[in-house]
């Protein structure tokens, strides 16, 4: 039962991705062509509200549901890791028009051929695991 809240939060996320057309391949292409404010508005407003909320959580030391501290793990600094990894991710994101969240929501939506993309992303993740010691981080 402790997982039920995650199920409902996931459903909410999937409905948002669907209803705001974030799972649309076309919206991603439109975004990278700078021809609509839609995706920028979504990410921008989420980040602005997110940043305000995170500051409130840190200053007021908001607790989790169980009463523990809400912790944020700072990411270690690197240029090659984030830039190269980010560029590879971006190339794929624009080609298939879906990042990891939307991929799964699209399956539920009935677009089963996105399963090939999910399979590819698992191979990609696995390949990273195999070669990560040889990559600049």
């Amino acid at each position, binding site marked *: 039962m402790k997982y039920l809240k995650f199920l409902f939060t996931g459903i909410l996320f999937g409905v948002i991705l669907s209803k705001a057309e974030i799972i649309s391949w076309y919206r991603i292409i439109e975004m990278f*062509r700078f021809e609509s404010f839609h995706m920028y508005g979504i990410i921008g407003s989420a980040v602005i509200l997110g940043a305000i909320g995170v500051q409130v959580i840190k200053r007021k030391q908001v607790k989790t549901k169980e009463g523990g501290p809400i912790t944020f793990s700072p990411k270690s600094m690197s240029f090659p890791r984030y830039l190269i990894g980010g560029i590879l991710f971006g*190339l794929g994101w624009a080609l298939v028009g879906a990042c990891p969240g939307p991929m799964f929501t699209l399956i539920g939506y009935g677009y089963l051929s996105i399963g090939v993309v999910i399979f590819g992303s698992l191979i990609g993740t696995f390949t990273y695991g195999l070669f990560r010691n040889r990559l600049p981080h």
Partner: protein
Amino acid sequence: MDFLIHPWPWYVAGPLIALVMFLLLYFGESFGMSSNLRTICSMAGGGKATNFFRFDWKSQQWNLVFLFGAVLGGFLSANYLTSEAPILLNPSTVNALEGLGFAKPTSAYLPKKLFGVSALQSLSGISILLFGGFLVGFGARYAGGCTSGHAISGLSNLQVPSLLAVIGFFIGGLTMVHLFFPLLF
């Protein structure tokens, strides 16, 4: 209930995504979708190949449940919250895509040219989907996160590494759409 059926504007979707992130923080976890790909690799026995997949994946079960919810959310939207209206894209996007051989967008979220039955039956069609997925999976893990982990969670926490990753996402995405699309299609 009409407002549920129509496409949601950005100022509804953005704040709701922030809410999803805060709910996960309140539950003691964090918002990041691509971690699930690593978890699935671990469950499939990836730990036999490299220690990157040797971790306590059971601690990530909550995220798999969240992912399953996101699948259900898509199913519910498709079956109970759908309008048949075609997507209202910028006409110049539509024109540019038509120039590359993509049919006029309908209410469908994915183009037939890339995701239709005939694309799946051709070697080049399957290769594009596999390769695109590969880049997303490899890139997300290399960069340590995807759109949810870096662009939403990381930027909300004012992380410079996340800003670098998001800049990378855009360099990659712009290169694909403006440089490689005319070559590929």
